[in-house]
């Protein structure tokens, strides 16, 4: 039996000996999550090859960085993964802090942890809703957006913005938490725990849902590691790799939480892993909210940032996987070079491996399960 899933495999002959069809899925298509264009080679409805064509949303974010100061560039990273702006911002701020040799004060680190975990919940909720929508369940997205709205309200009260928040500053936080931040976050977390069970009741044991996701888009642990896949898709293959545990940042080393892993590396396992991550995020938030240390929120780093010449790489666990920043400083106020390691872009590499041999209907399920954001893929 030929290995129909390996990337090197090409089919010369279709099953019925008919011509293969090439269709363009996207860049304008209801379920390519933005402007992804997938060129599919089909034998009937079976996919025998695919090619992702990206770049429709390219804005040259990395190049822009070379003409902005470190502080000015911070809001730009929010526009990459615009549904998880807080996580992007945390990664950038911590990278520059590392370059400066500075560290945010404890209070700032805890507040950063809380907001980042809330952002993870918001991002996973949007994934759940759109993924379910791709598979044909029309209703969950409205419930997900309803819950996400509560998180966005907390962001709005905290920093005035809902989507591209620019919540953190290099060296700490610009804003103190607002009155009632703790209560609102705690209330949200406690309500949300019930809501997650509700979503699971809608989908987890639904026969159609299981049929549509089980065995679809299988990625073995070895394949995932070879392709550099990170985040929930990697953990669903059974690899317990989470930067929050492996290389703790912010205040994650202070809290108890588990890394959910899957067994089969299929779409269903990725779904289960993300659902469990929602619960773990609540757990972290509730622990953090109990004990926010008092003290300053900004480290003493001065107004004009002039990091010493050198280079640094730092990565954090964003909702979609490892987001890393590589910054080269030449000792001026502007970075010499910024390179981003975006999880969406690198996870998208696995698309072809996952999609071969499946049907057209599975293609949208696989795009959905990868949880890509084109703003981040194209940058």
């Amino acid at each position, binding site marked *: 039996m030929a290995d129909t899933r390996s990337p090197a495999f090409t089919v010369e002959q279709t099953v019925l000996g008919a011509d293969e069809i090439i*269709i363009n899925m996207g860049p304008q*298509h209801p379920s390519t999550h933005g402007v992804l264009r997938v060129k599919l080679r089909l034998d009937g409805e079976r996919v025998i090859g695919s090619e992702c064509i990206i770049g429709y949303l390219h804005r040259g974010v990395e190049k822009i960085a070379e003409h902005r100061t470190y502080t000015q560039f911070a809001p730009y990273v929010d526009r990459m993964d615009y549904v998880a702006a807080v996580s992007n911002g945390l990664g950038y701020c911590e990278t520059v802090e590392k370059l400066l040799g500075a560290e945010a004060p404890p209070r700032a680190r805890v507040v950063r942890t809380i907001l980042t975990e809330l952002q993870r919940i918001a991002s996973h909720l949007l994934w759940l809703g759109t993924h379910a929508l791709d598979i044909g369940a029309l209703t969950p997205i409205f*419930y997900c957006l309803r819950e996400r709205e509560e998180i966005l309200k907390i962001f709005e009260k905290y920093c005035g913005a809902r989507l591209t928040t620019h919540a953190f500053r290099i060296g700490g936080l610009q804003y103190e938490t607002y009155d009632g931040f703790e209560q609102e976050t705690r209330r949200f977390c406690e309500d949300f725990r019930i809501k997650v069970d509700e979503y699971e009741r809608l989908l987890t044991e639904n026969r159609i849902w299981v*049929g549509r996701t089980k065995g679809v888009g299988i990625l073995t642990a070895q394949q995932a590691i070879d392709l550099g896949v990170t985040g929930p898709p990697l953990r669903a293959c059974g690899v317990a790799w989470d930067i929050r545990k492996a290389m703790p940042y912010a205040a994650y080393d202070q809290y108890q939480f588990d890394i959910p892993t899957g067994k089969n590396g299929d779409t269903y396992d990725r779904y289960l892993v993300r659902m469990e991550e929602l619960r773990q995020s609540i757990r972290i938030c509730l622990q953090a909210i109990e004990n926010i240390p008092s003290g300053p929120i900004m480290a003493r780093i001065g107004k004009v940032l002039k990091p010493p010449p050198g280079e640094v790489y730092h990565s954090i666990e964003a909702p979609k996987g490892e987001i890393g920043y590589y910054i080269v400083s030449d000792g001026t106020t502007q970075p010499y070079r910024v390179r981003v390691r975006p999880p969406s872009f690198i996870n998208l590499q696995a698309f072809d491996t996952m999609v071969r041999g499946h*049907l057209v209907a599975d293609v949208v399920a696989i795009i959905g399960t990868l949880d890509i954001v084109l703003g981040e893929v194209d940058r």
Partner: protein
Amino acid sequence: MQSIIEFLRPHALPLLYAVLIVAVLPLLAGYVVLLERKVMADMQARLGPMRVGPHGLLQPIADALKLLLKEDIIPERADKWIFWMAPLISVTAGLLAFAALPFGPGFLIADLNIGLLFIVAISSMGIFGIVLGGWASNSHYSLMGALRSAAQLVSYEVAGGMALVAGVLLAGTLSTREMVDAQAAQGVWFIFLCPVAFFIYLVASVAETNRAPFDMPEAESELVAGYMTEFSGFRWSLYFLAEYANMIVVAGIATTLFLGGGARPFGGVSWLRPLDFFPPLFFVGVAGFCFYRAPKQPVLVQKLVMAAFGGLFLLLALPLGVAATILPAWKAAVHGGFWFVAKVMLYIYVFLWIRFTFPRYRFDQLMHLGWFFLIPLSIVNVMSLGIGLVLHRQAGWSLPVALGLSTLATLVVALYLAHVGEQRAGISDTEVESEA
């Protein structure tokens, strides 16, 4: 001239009904869409259309106007004649099927002795419109949608047809009018005598009308809009009309064969006689609600529209009330229409409910369900029902016992089929793993 009138006289009533159906159905389909959007909104914690008219009541009319005024685009590479004709085939087939649906004892265009066969035959002609439309568009998405639709309809027509055979066995006739009479005569709706057949028909009819979770041909998130991708404006709205007409037709068939047609629920129970007053009182109630809400609308126009709707419902309540009280001879005819439409709406509500609850099947899973579960089950159901009827008619068993046993036997087979299907799925799972 005289001779023409003489010739037309016996056909006057059917002609009037036909004109009425062709005139009213598009409007009704529009309001079914509004109902669908409102039900969807209710399930999804939102309000649905609220802007055009009070509570969005004029939305269907605005939509229809918009569709009519839209530019009519025919793709350059399309096969123009077929592209032009395909939606017409679909909508004609959809509307033609209404000819044999009895909306009530009096309201029937053609009382054919093969009524059910006619409806099934004509409504499955609509597939030509879909296949030809998909082919003529000269687009991959359309073609795939059309082919899926053809395969799906062929598969589920068999299961649905066999389920109808079960009903026909009980009724002993193919005439739609006589089916309703048979249910009235036996004093029980056939849904209670052959629930399995009704269930199979429910599933098959969802698949036949291309509704979720079997909406492969349109599969919005996969094929954009399937066979309708290249259609716009009026042509597109014809397809839309055909789809909703088909929904009403399958609901009509189910109502006629399994739900007692235009008969009032509990028709044989004497102490429930006051239910006769339900239809007029229902409309009066709706009218009252409209009048109550009218002054609360924000704009004068909306107040007037709301009041007009209230007046309309009062107008509808009038003949129903008259029939219930003064003219008992008309009661069956007038109330039949009400109960028929009410049952059709209930059936369509189940469609909507399913649509907003379940994810979509994949194409191969859909075929699997059709060929390995529904078709064998429907055949077994017909056989066991036949045996039950023989036991009742020849051996003198009582009807509930005979048919209860046959239903039980069918359910056992259903369990077995589901078990086998699960095992088969298990096998294919391991195959996938060994391939990977």
